[in-house]
């Protein structure tokens, strides 16, 4: 009886898969028209960046891809291995310099940033801002000073209660209100700040989880060795806590990358925003499916690459392995 059920289930699933596969093939063969993707590849990559300067965002993307490949496939050479963290941390400032210009490159305003390079920049920029803020908030929530603990807890809980789109929308709307008159920061920077403020609350909870996993004996051992409280935090507790929190931090990073798509609602032309404006173009009317499949593939690849990188980092940081 059980076996019959199993066979019947397999047959049903096979029929379903066959039908889905056949309609996909049929659509690919007959209906799909990929001109909307193929002719606009530069737009997807760099947005409406000035034509003569397009090599800059492209170089940025290529550099990130090359760095990912080097990190993942990695040479066994110690020299290369050691310089990787340096290369990665140089990436964000380098990317901003390449996009914004200045220091020998002609300046390009943020209104012409767009496409995948903007998506990458939003992710990297807000992630880099959010991580230290999140760590501070987590330490604050674990502190035994009532003011610090209360303040951090209130911030984390409030931020986690409201939806991201509201934070982003009000970031665009309210950040100018909180600034002295005459001081203006542009839309991309406002987006990065709002993103970072939001993500910090979630990162704080992940880091707190990591901190809780470190047994008090670690701190006691550090104290016995004569380390000051600050040294014990910096050298003993925090590195271990961050390693424990790494898998959930990865999830946050992947979420951050996915959530940059929300900026399309607010009018930034990152990957999804560019697609929305392309789909409004009469030449590509009704080509939703092609564009969405293409976007899904790009996001899927980017997120998977990120998850792989984090997995790689986890293995690298594994104390058992590095002790060998």
């Amino acid at each position, binding site marked *: 009886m059980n076996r019959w059920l*199993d066979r019947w*289930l397999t047959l049903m*699933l096979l029929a379903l898969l066959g039908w889905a596969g056949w309609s996909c093939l049929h659509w690919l063969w007959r209906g799909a028209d990929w001109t909307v993707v193929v002719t606009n590849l530069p737009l997807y990559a760099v947005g409406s960046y000035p034509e003569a300067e397009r090599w800059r965002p492209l170089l940025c993307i290529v550099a990130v891809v090359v760095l990912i490949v080097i990190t993942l496939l990695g040479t066994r050479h110690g020299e290369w291995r050691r310089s990787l963290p340096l290369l990665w941390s140089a990436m964000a400032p380098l990317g901003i310099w390449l996009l914004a210009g200045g220091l020998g490159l002609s300046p390009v305003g943020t209104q012409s940033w767009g496409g995948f390079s903007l998506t990458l920049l939003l992710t990297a920029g807000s992630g880099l801002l959010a991580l230290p803020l999140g760590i501070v908030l987590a330490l604050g929530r674990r502190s035994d000073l009532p003011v610090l603990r209360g303040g951090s807890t209130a911030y984390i809980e409030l931020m986690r*209660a409201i*939806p991201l789109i*509201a934070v982003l929308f009000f970031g665009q709307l309210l950040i100018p*209100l909180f600034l002295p008159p005459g001081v203006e920061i542009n839309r991309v920077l406002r987006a990065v700040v709002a993103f970072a403020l939001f993500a910090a609350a979630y990162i704080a909870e992940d880091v707190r989880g990591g901190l809780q996993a470190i047994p008090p004996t670690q701190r006691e051992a550090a104290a016995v060795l004569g380390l000051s409280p600050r040294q014990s935090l910096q050298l003993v507790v925090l590195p271990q806590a961050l390693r424990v929190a790494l898998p959930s931090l990865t999830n946050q990073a992947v979420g951050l990358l996915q959530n940059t798509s929300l900026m399309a609602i607010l009018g930034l032309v990152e990957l999804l925003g560019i697609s929305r404006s392309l789909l409004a173009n009469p030449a590509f009317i009704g080509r939703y499916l092609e564009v*969405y499949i293409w976007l899904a593939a790009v996001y899927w690849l980017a997120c998977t690459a990120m998850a792989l990188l984090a997995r790689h980092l986890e293995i690298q940081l594994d104390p058992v392995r590095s002790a060998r």
Partner: protein
Amino acid sequence: MPQIFRRGRFWIQLGVVVALMAFGGLLINNITVNLIRTGLGLDFGWLWRPAGFALAETALPYAPTDSYAWALVIGWMNSLKVILVGLLLATMLGVAAGAARSSRNRLLRSLSGGYVALIRQVPLLLQLLFWYFVAFLGLPDTPVGGLIHFSNQGIRLLGLNLSVEFCSVLTGLVVFTGASIAEIVRGGINAVSLGQWEAFRSLGLLEGVGLRRIVLPQALPAILPALTSQFLNLAKNSTLAIAVGYADLYAVSDTTITQTGRAIEGFLLLLLSFLLLNLLISGGMALMNGAVLGRLQRSR
């Protein structure tokens, strides 16, 4: 408790308070200057003025001549509708997909794995747009046996009219959250020792019965807390409905703010609404958690 800051803790706290107060004072000063400059004060009187915009989907009678406050209530109802139905369906999908991961049928197992791997790496907003523009607006006009009627105007289910916007938001949320719940359920099931499976199999119980009666109840304590945060995520993500034009709480707030220019008041109302919603969901889940743990204890 951490020993950091032990020395001079009073001074540190004082310093933090002073710094926070200075920062807060600076922000408040700036905002008052800006509000005076733009001629906006903090005032909720606009709530009772006629809203003047139409809403496509209303659970209670609503006309553009009604007040902003009533429009916001209608938005609330729409949000609640999609969230409650979404919670129910996402849980069902998630449990089914999570349980399928430990099925003996290899095809079912890999299908469920593929679903999770695909859905979790693609942004929800993109999925919502797909469901709206491709799936539901592209539905051919097909009556199915008089009970269900699909069309690109919406779905008619036994006299119940579901709009295209509602259907796409609901489907998007259910499919996306279902994938996360599936991972949680899988984790919970894996936490139940293998001996339990062997035990019910050796008793001759069917796979499905054993899963439902033996394994899942024991997995529940591990599943429920993580489920709560997924439910909260679903509620928060429902605000993306604005992208497909479903008149939920956030969309109505957005229109209200654009029309009245009352960003701060609107934000405060939205914040309050979401705090309330979060309290409702986590309170409900806490009750359920207590009930489940109590029942488990009694059955032991």
